[in-house]
């Protein structure tokens, strides 16, 4: 079993190879891992298998096309693919628009600091482990919040997940970026 942190950094590396070199082998590895998960996620969200397959393919294609938008200091690859899948789900399954927040104008793009990337990816791994270690009933509560239209109220309080650290890290990054803008 591969170390979780290493694996996450490897996914990040794959994304960068797709972005910089249109690397098909890297994409194939991402596809093998994530495409079935996206399909499963959509099926649990109420889609039939053939629509879920179609949407999963679109999500993975978007993952390729928008590779330059991926910021590994702010999201894990799983998170980034999740947001693409969620947006397609709203679009295709619910036939609604999804208003997005205003983009922050952060000036010229630059490579994120490697230490920030590592830290965010490690925290994502911690979050993943925390979810995996939850009692089944609590884990299902969270899954249902993301799969379907069930109530979300008790989750944060009941589970005590380390969301706070990710939240404060993102907050810090936003503050730093805003500061750099001045």
């Amino acid at each position, binding site marked *: 079993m591969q170390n979780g942190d290493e694996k996450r950094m490897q996914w990040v590396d794959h994304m960068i190879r797709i972005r910089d070199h249109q690397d098909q082998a890297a994409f194939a590895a991402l596809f093998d891992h994530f495409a079935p998960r996206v399909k499963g996620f959509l099926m649990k969200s109420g889609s039939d298998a053939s629509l879920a397959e179609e949407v999963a393919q679109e999500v993975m294609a978007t993952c*390729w096309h928008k590779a330059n938008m991926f910021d590994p200091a702010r999201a*894990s690859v799983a998170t980034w693919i999740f*947001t693409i899948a969620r947006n397609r789900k709203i679009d295709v399954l619910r036939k609604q628009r999804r208003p997005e927040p205003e983009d922050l104008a952060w000036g010229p793009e630059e490579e994120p600091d490697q230490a920030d990337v590592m830290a965010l990816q490690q925290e994502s791994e911690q*979050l993943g482990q925390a979810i995996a270690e939850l009692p089944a009933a609590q884990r299902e509560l969270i899954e249902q919040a993301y799969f379907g239209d069930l109530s979300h109220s008790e989750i944060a309080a009941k589970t005590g997940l380390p969301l706070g650290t990710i*939240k404060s890290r993102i907050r810090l990054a936003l503050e730093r970026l805003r500061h750099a803008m001045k």
Partner: protein
Amino acid sequence: MEQKITHHLTDDILMAYAAGTLPEAFNLMVATHVSLCDTCRAAVESYDALGGEVLEQTPGNDISLTPGSFAATMALIAGGAPDTIHTAPRARDAVLPQPLQDYVGGGVDTIRWRPVGMGVKQAILPASKDASARLLYIPAGAAMPDHGHHGTEMTMVLQGAFQDEDDYFARGDVEIADSDLHHTPVADIHEDCICLAVTDAPLRFQGVLPKIAQRFARI
């Protein structure tokens, strides 16, 4: 940086926004608030992270892809990015953040207000049927008509300020009301107040408009 926002969206709402399970009008509220509020933006991104882990832990082994799935995806990729028609960012508006400008079709000057009585005006925004979104214009110092609520109502200040019995709400602040609350917000005296209001139930204005007029005003 804007003045400090003191009334935020709840974690429930932010999480549901990340999960993609809110009605469109509520999504518009979140997107608008998050455009002004770093605290809630960070919270949304952390709930995105939670969604990422849920996806990561969705069993992939027992889901089989259609044969030729990878080749089909590569063909999609070869076909080029589908939606490269990115809408150019609109000019910044002092009142309406980007997501609201998209729904209004422009800045604050392009809002098509309709009077609803007592100097109050509204503009209903297009959204899916499960909840409604509208902009409200309340003259400085004027009281909003007293209204009760059936469902959840969220009101966010875009210009000016208002206060109710308990609190003061300035630009970016969101007041969240549920069915128990009967309140009488009053717009701050210094400036006409513009708000975004979303609700998942029709409002009952009490005493100001007769039932029939309510139907015409869609409130």
